[in-house]
């Protein structure tokens, strides 16, 4: 499986993904694909299953049926090598989820050392560079509790990047931030995208989606209602539901 995958194929390939929590079906046959270097945004009202989808892609939650392939690795396979999957996929959460007992630098260094067993000195050099890249040089020795929400979120991004993933998943990463720090996080993501990082974002930041995304998916109640390039979707949405949603948030 993994061997048959070539870089020109999509990094993420979801086919008819369904997911139920008991009797409640939150994903009702989602299909989408993300190619290398693309920035994909998923928008839609709350409760439309966006976050669930992104968590399924990272195998944090099992799906009920369908198929999700990451670089040819079938996420639903019973003998899934989770480590192999998670080396390829980085994830940033809404609530940052930094480890509060470690400094910013340690947060970034932990996974490469513990999980990938890389050399500590090399990891540290890379971690410092990553923190500088997310504009947090000088905050290396601060603990998460001493950082603002935006700064914590950027540490979380650096922490995921330290694993050198092929794709980054962002789960409403600005939703828990105060308005003034949202921007600094979005700037960081935009820079990542400009560097060619493949990104899949669930977001409520329409302007950001419009400017940065290559492709936008609109989901509602567990289905993809409409998708297309941002300029088409935001200006000439065909579906009535999309139009209503956009008129409410824009």
């Amino acid at each position: 499986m993994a061997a048959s995958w070539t870089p020109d194929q999509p990094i993420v390939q979801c086919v008819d993904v369904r997911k139920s929590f008991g009797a409640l079906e939150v994903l009702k046959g989602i299909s989408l694909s993300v190619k290398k270097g693309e920035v994909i945004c998923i928008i839609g009202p709350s409760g439309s299953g966006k976050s669930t989808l992104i968590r399924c892609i990272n195998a944090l939650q099992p799906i009920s049926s369908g198929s999700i392939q990451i670089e040819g690795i079938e996420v639903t396979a019973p003998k899934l090598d989770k480590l192999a999957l998670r080396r390829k996929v980085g994830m940033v959460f809404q609530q940052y989820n930094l480890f509060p007992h470690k400094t910013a630098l340690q947060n970034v260094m932990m996974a490469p050392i513990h999980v990938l067993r890389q050399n500590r000195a090399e990891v540290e050099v890379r971690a410092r560079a990553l923190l500088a890249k997310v504009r947090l040089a000088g905050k290396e020795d601060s603990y998460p509790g001493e950082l603002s929400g935006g700064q914590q979120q950027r540490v979380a991004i650096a922490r995921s990047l330290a694993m050198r993933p092929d794709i980054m998943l962002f789960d409403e990463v600005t939703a828990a931030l105060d308005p003034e720090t949202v921007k600094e996080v979005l700037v960081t993501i935009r820079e990542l995208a400009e560097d060619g990082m493949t990104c899949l974002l669930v977001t409520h930041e329409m302007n950001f989606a419009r400017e940065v995304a290559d492709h936008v998916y609109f989901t509602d109640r567990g289905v993809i209602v409409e998708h297309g390039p941002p300029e088409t979707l935001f200006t000439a949405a065909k579906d009535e539901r999309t139009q209503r949603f956009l008129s409410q948030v824009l």
Partner: protein
Amino acid sequence: MKPAEPVHGFAVLLPYRLVPTRMSVRISPLSAAIICFCAIMAVSTAWAQTTPTMLSPLQIILKWSPLLLRGFAFNILISLLAMLLGTVAGLGLGLALLSEFRPLASVSWLVTQFFRNAPWLVLLFFVMFLVPFQITIFKTTIPLPDWVKATVGFALPVMANVAEVVRGAVRSVPSTQWEAAESLSFTRRQMMWLIILPQCIKRMLPPWMNIYALVAMATVLASIVGVSEMLTLTAQVHAAEGGRPELFAPLYGFALLCFFLYCYPINLWTARLERRFRIR
């Protein structure tokens, strides 16, 4: 250097707190009692088949249970009296801790710390040996039997613990309540009794019940200083039955069972109240 004040206000970075949660497998008092009883009986019969002429441990417990249960009732009586005494004194001490008159507050702090940190058994010895067996007030002599002294001995740590509970509960009332009361020109005493304490009672109930369970279990210490409560009687029953070593386990097991059946429901109820008050 003072660390930079975090500029966010989200719950995510508040420290994780200990929240009493249910255990994954819950044991009801009834089933626990049945399990305990079976275990004790299994243990006792396993060793008790020495000679058929002797009474089995179960028969012995049945034979003596009226006496033993009377002893247990005495334990409960001591615990209730000690709790009553300790709560009244503890309420006073707790209010003294919160007093605005500094010397009173510091003296009561010392008293609280002293009685909280001394081992219960040592306090019991303290009262037993240093309080006379009778006191004379206004030419009437009041005898102080051992069990009364023991009750006082248990009331002392209760007092200190209740005082801490009162202090903690009053402190947990938001300061806006004090300010609101003050703006209505209540006196401090009125504020305390009419506004603050009524709000505290709910908060004080679970820890207060915890203290009670502790006292109930501590009453057996009285046997060490010669009060004939359940544990003393258990030893006497054992001697009366010829001091057979295999009788120790069932007899003390019976005492364990009695206390368990009394304390576990209290404990469950306390936990339930704690959860309910927390959700609110």
